[in-house]
Every structure is written in C-alpha cells, then in structure tokens.
C-alpha cells in the first residue's frame, strides 16, 4: 500500500523581500492505486507542487509522505524511497536526452534501480520488455528521440519512469504538447499501466475533459492554494467554488457559441 500524502505543504521561491509563495498550505491525499487530477491555470502552483514531491524543490514547510515515510527528510537507507516516486514531464522532446538512444535512457533508469539482473543481456531484455509495455517496437531501442514521433517519445518517457519500478507516478501535463489524435493513446496507456501495476497517480492537467474521464478524484488549485477537491464527477459536474465553476464554463463545447458574460460589448470602434 503506497499512498501519497501532502500535509500543509508550502513552497517558497527566493528569500527576503523577493520571496514568492508558489504553493501555500496544500494538504492532499492520493490514495493507493488511485488517480487524482490536479487542475488549475498557469502560475497556480500545480507544477511546483509536483516538483516538490519528486524532490526538485525543497518545501519550505509541511510534510510529503510516501507510504507513510517523509520523503523530504528521509536520509541514508530510507532515502531510496524517493525513487518510488517518478515523474513524466510535459514535453518528451526535452525530457529525453537528445544525445542518448531511447534504449540507453531506459537502461539508465534500470541501472540506477539496481534491482534487475545485472548482466548486460538481462538489462537489454528488460529494456525490450518495458518498451513493449508502452507499446513500442523494442527494435527502436537504438533510435534517438529525434527519430521518434511526439507520441512515441512520450511513451518512452513513461517506460523510463516505469523502469525505476515506482509506486507513485506524477504526470505533469503529459499530453499538452501532443496532437489530439495522439493524446488518447498516451492516456489509455497511462491508465493501462496504472491498473496493471496498481500505481498511485497524481495527474496534472489543464484539460478538464481529460481529467473527468481519467481521474477518480480531482483537486483544483488557484494562486498556490487548493480551492476545491473531491470526486471528479461531483467537482466538475457540480462545482462548489466559483473559480472551479469559471474553469468549467470556459471549456469550449462543440455546439455552444463562445459565451461572453464578463465583457460588455461595444468598446471596439
């Protein structure tokens, strides 16, 4: 059982007069084997929160617990728990080393983990297995990221994260750089591996329709704070906080014309 619990997490950039609180007092629980969506606009602090969870930023205050262990203060042997939390980034063309073959990228993640057989052949086989898991031809292990399509690259990024055998996976806008035709494939893949491996997933997105279809629960962030959280259909279909309502209303719909409630007409002349 590995859940992700955030307790009063506070992330601050800079110090003194220029200090900026990107995340303020956020408490959130992602239950074991659940997918929780985190939505909000740019600057709301959702990506900063994710980076704090994986250790790229140190929180200013609060605790981040993975399966009950505080990952921020874990030292020595306990620190290995940090590898239980992996992240898939928004843009795979920047999250994969352009000079490394995709096989080598995945293999590096395996080598660090060190749990898999040490032999070269065994590692190769494991890389092939992981590429197959993300529905990529293992023969492409020798390709550089630039030789793959955007969707294929993002699947390699998922494979690399899986190579570390994580218990918790953070997905930070993983489809926003992709075409809509490719988006579905990556999302279906994420759900498939989440179910097979019983992963705990924090899914960060600005796309409410995707969140509604994918996530069990959703949390809404604004200006570094959590303004609303709950079961996805409840929050999105019947939002309580005015900001959530605003977000839902702003989603374009096929049949409805743009609604312009906030603007008066006639200034352009």
């Amino acid at each position, binding site marked *: 059982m590995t859940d992700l619990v955030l307790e009063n997490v506070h992330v601050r950039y800079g110090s003194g007069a220029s200090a900026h609180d990107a995340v303020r007092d956020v408490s959130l629980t992602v239950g074991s084997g659940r997918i929780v969506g985190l939505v909000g*606009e*740019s600057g709301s602090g959702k990506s900063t929160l994710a980076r704090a969870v994986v*250790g790229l930023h140190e929180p200013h205050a609060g605790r981040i617990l993975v399966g009950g262990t505080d990952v921020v203060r874990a030292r020595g042997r306990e620190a*290995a728990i*940090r*590898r239980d939390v*992996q*992240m898939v*980034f*928004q843009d795979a063309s*920047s*999250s*994969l*080393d*352009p000079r*490394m073959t995709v096989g080598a*990228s995945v293999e*590096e993640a395996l080598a*660090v983990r060190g749990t898999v057989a040490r032999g070269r052949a065994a590692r190769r086989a494991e890389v092939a297995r992981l590429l197959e898991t993300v529905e990529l031809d293992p023969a492409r292990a020798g*390709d*550089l990221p*630039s*030789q793959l399509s*955007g969707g*294929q690259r993002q699947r390699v990024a998922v494979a*690399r994260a899986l190579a*570390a055998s994580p218990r918790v996976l953070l997905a930070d806008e993983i489809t926003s750089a992709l075409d*809509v*035709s*490719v*988006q*579905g*494939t990556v*999302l*279906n893949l994420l759900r498939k591996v989440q179910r097979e491996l019983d992963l705990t997933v924090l899914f960060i997105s600005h*796309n*409410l329709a*995707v969140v*509604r*279809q994918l996530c069990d629960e959703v949390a809404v962030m604004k200006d570094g704070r959590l303004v609303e959280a709950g079961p996805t259909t409840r929050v*999105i279909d019947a939002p309580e906080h005015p900001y959530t309502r*605003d*977000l*839902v209303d*702003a*989603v*374009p*719909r*096929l*049949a409805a*014309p*743009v*609604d*312009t409630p*906030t*603007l008066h*007409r*006639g200034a*352009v*002349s």
Partner: protein
Amino acid sequence: MTMPRDLPAAAPAGPRRRRGALLSTLRSPLGIVASLFLLTLVVLAVVGPLHWGETAKVAELTRLSEGPSADHLLGTDAGGRDVLARMLTATRLSVLTAVLATLIGVTLGVVLGLIPIVAPRWIARAVNAALGVALAFPSLLLAIVVSVVLGVGAVSLTLAIGLAMAPAYARLAQTLGSSVAGRDFVAAARILGVGRFRILTRHVLPNVRDPLIVNASIGAGTALVAATGLSFLGLGVQAPRYDWGRMLNESLEGIFVNAAPSLGLAGAIVFAGVTFALVGETLSRAFGLHQPSRRLWRRLRRRPASPGEQAAPLSVVDDPVLRVRDLKVSAPRGDWWATPVRGVSFDIGRGEVVGVVGESGSGKSLTCMAVAALLEEPLEVTADSVCFDGTELVAGGRVSGQTSGELARRLGTRMGFVFQDPSTSLNPALHVGTQVAEVGLLHGGLSRSAAHERAVDRLDAVRIPDAARRAHQYPHEFSGGMRQRAMMAMALMGEPALLIADEPTTALDVTVQREVMALLAEINEVKGTAVLFVSHDITLVASFCTRVLVMYRGAIVEDLSTADLAAGRAQHPYTRALVEAVPHLDAEPGAEFATIAEGADFPTEPVRSRS
C-alpha cells in the same frame, strides 16, 4: 517571429546522419580547403624537424644575413643559417605549443565551468567569483604574468597561455552547461537518483561538446598568435630552441635590409591561424551549428515543386475578402524539397469567420503565413492567385515575403495577424505603445504623437486597463492575454478587412482564452472584420467560427459549416476521427479515450459536403 509550428520536424539527427553531415561538409569547398590546409600543417609539424632539422643547424659563417637566393629561398639569418629550413623546423614547436595550450585551456575551463553546476552552492559561488575576476583580466596580460612567474621557456609558455585561455572557456562551458542542466532530462535523471558526476558526464557533457570543440579549434589560432607574440617579446621559447615568434624577433633587426625572413614567418603564422579557423568553421557546419548556405537553397530551387493535387475550391464566396487558388509552400529538407502545403484553394467572405483546423504538420499555419506574405527564404510560396481585398499578391507565380510600397501599406493597414506565442510576437526591448503606434507611423501617415495617441486609444479599445500608462510599459510587464490583445490593437490601428489569428490562445489559460475569443468575436461583429482562425482544437473552432476548413497533410480535405460539424454531419473520415478524438465533458468517466491509430492513412481527397 517564431518558426511556424506546422513545419514538419527536422530530419532525424541520428549517429548515421551525423557521420553523413560530416562527410558532406568535408566534400564542400570549405571542407576540402580546410582538410588540405590541416593536412599540410600536420605533415609539416611531423616531418619538419626530421627533414629540415639538420639543414637548419648548418651555419655558413661566410653568408650571414643574406637575402633570398637559389640556395636559401628566404635568405639566411644573423648566424648564417637557412631561414626557410628553420621556419619549417619550427612548425612543430609553434603548432604544438598552440594545440597543447588550447587543450590545457579547454580542459581546465570545462572542469571549472561545470563545477558550479553540480557542486554545493558555496563552492559554486567561490568558483564563479574567481572566474569573474579572471575574466576581467586581459588574457594576454595574464599569460605574460604567468609566464614570468613560471620562468621563461616553451613549457611555461604553453602553461601560461593555457591558463590564460581557461577563464573564457570556463564561462562558455558554464553558460552552455547551465542551459542543459536546466532541461527536463536532467531533472528526470535526478529524480531517478542518477549521481551528480554521472549526470555531468552522461547528460551535460555530450550536449555541450559540439560548440566547445568548434570554439577550441578557432581558439587554437588565437593561442598560436599569443604564443608567437610572447616568444617575440622574449618571454617564450629561449635559445637554442626556436619557434616562429623568436625567429620573427631575430629577423626584425634586419628587416630594412632583408624583409624576406619576416614576410615568410608572417605568412606561416597566418597560414596556421587560418587553418585553425577553417577547421573550426568546417566542424561548426558539420555539427549543424550553422545554417546551410544560400547556395544550397538556390541549387535546390531548380527542382520543381510536386504537382498540385487540388485546384478548385470546395466552396466559392461572392466578393471574397480573400481568394486563394492552388497555394503551395515548399521547404528544403536536406537535399530535397518537401511540400508541406500542397495546392490549397479557398475563399473567405467579407465579415466571415472561418476556422482552419488540423494537427501539427498539416500545413495550416504555413498557409496563413503564406497568405499574409510572411514566408521568406528558404521557404518557397507559389500560387495561381492570392487576392486580398482586391489586390493580387502573386507576381510571377510566387508570393514574395518581401513586400514594399503600396502592397506593404495595404497589408499593413487592411490585414492583421495575431501569432501563437505572445511572448515572442512583441519586441521585448520596445514599449508596447511604440510597437502598436508603428503601423500608424509607417502606413497611416500619422505623426509620432498622433500615432501614439491612436495607439493608446486602440489599446483602450481592446480593454487594456489604464491604456495611457500601459502604453509606456514593456511586453514583459503584460500578461499573456494582454499581449495578445495588444497584437489585436496593432491590427486595429488600420481598418482591417481580415484578421488572421494563428493559434492565438494555445499558450493561454482557458479563462483568458475565453476573453481573447470574445474580443475577436466583438471585432468581427462591430467592425465587420473577417477572421481566419487557425487552431488544432476543433471544438474551439466550432464554437467560434461559422465555417471550418479541415487540413490534413497539406491539403484541405473538408469545408463545412459549423452547424453541420456540430450536428455530426462531417463526411471526411479524418474530420470524423478528429472530432471523436477530442475528449469532452459529457464522456463516460473511466471510458477509453478515442484514438487515431498511429500511422493511420486517411484519404487526402477532399469531400464536398456543401453544395
């Protein structure tokens, strides 16, 4: 301006392609010259002392300081020795000093420069401070100080120049390294628990290597000149050893009597310096740090673009504001022409709001930029006709990116363009008001103050709060939504008949997107400006436009009304697939996401759903 998003990704840069690029650069005139020069220099450095070493030692005491003769092509020196033989013999020491000094400088520089990236903060600060001081010191002065401290001689000369070069390379390595270290793949490696040293060697170094090698090669030329200079001053190589610098010093005494030795030595120094620079330039081309030459494009242009697939528009409008017939855009891809836009034809009526949807690489952005005469070399735009507001843009079968005179004025005042990325579409160094006013100055015939006044009025019209004050702010002081509105204010400086909006809200949040869309709708409604709205989001297009053009692989495959689209009457399989692939808020939670199979082939034949 950013590169259009719709350009298909560049050809893969695999190891094979890398080798191919090096080979093809080597076969270019530059590559051939550089190789020949380098070969000559290397051969001389290796063979020089072996072949001419003995001759160089022979002192003919009867022939001191003689001018050029058949026996001594560059004459003899004060000791009666053959200058040419000595010069060729000295090649090894001169070149070796330069190369070794560069190696020392680059190695030291890379180590110093990359330390701050992985070291604890206090070490990083100390190294940075030291580098700052070292950089403030003129490097030749530094070399002189070091060589005096170390004692004169060839070894200390090499060390001195190497040390003097290190700070500049350290700063270069640091700048390159920090930009790599800030990228997501380094973050991903850190999350995986990859060690700092390994991150440095496996991820950072390979990604900064190319520019460093190129710089080192060019830097070797500088090192050679510096070494020669120090030896010339007597701070370098000491007798009985000699390099070009020392020889130059010795030859100087008799320069008015016998100029040949000095000229010969100067020639040798220039030759070596040019060789290093050419090698650097060649490597830079081979690593792709350079744009391909214009000559290559010209050679390519002789190849015809692929024949058009579609000439007739799918629907025709009476008195259109924009009429496009058989528009093609070609782009050089290595040594062949790609045609990302393959003969599109369409009309836009006056005051009509038309959407263009398609995925990346479908050619939608290129089409719009071509229509606005914004595409320049190396892209090639051809068309039967592009008629905007009664003005024909096609001349000689091409649409040129260089417009002037009446045409430029017409495009500037009657056509507006809002780009995708508001952070790059405004000049960061100029006040927003100044940039908005520019249209009025250039094309509206307004005075500076009148143009500024109108700019403030236009900013106010697009609801920039406190427009008079905001006009004096820089783009970075504006939010993304406000920058897009400033772009619209720019369009509204004239009386636009058409506003082209290329993914204007893709970089914006949904709530801001709604405001921008509302403003576009209002401009259309109040001023009767036609809008060509480009987006990858078919839902957004459908919610805003009255008619939709669907682009797929460079062709328009369907032209249908939004009403038909919303009612599910799209006929082209690609349009249907695209609509289905968009996740919507009414989907069943937990349901599979609709996908378009990778490599799926849809027909590029258009369907005619409007009759």
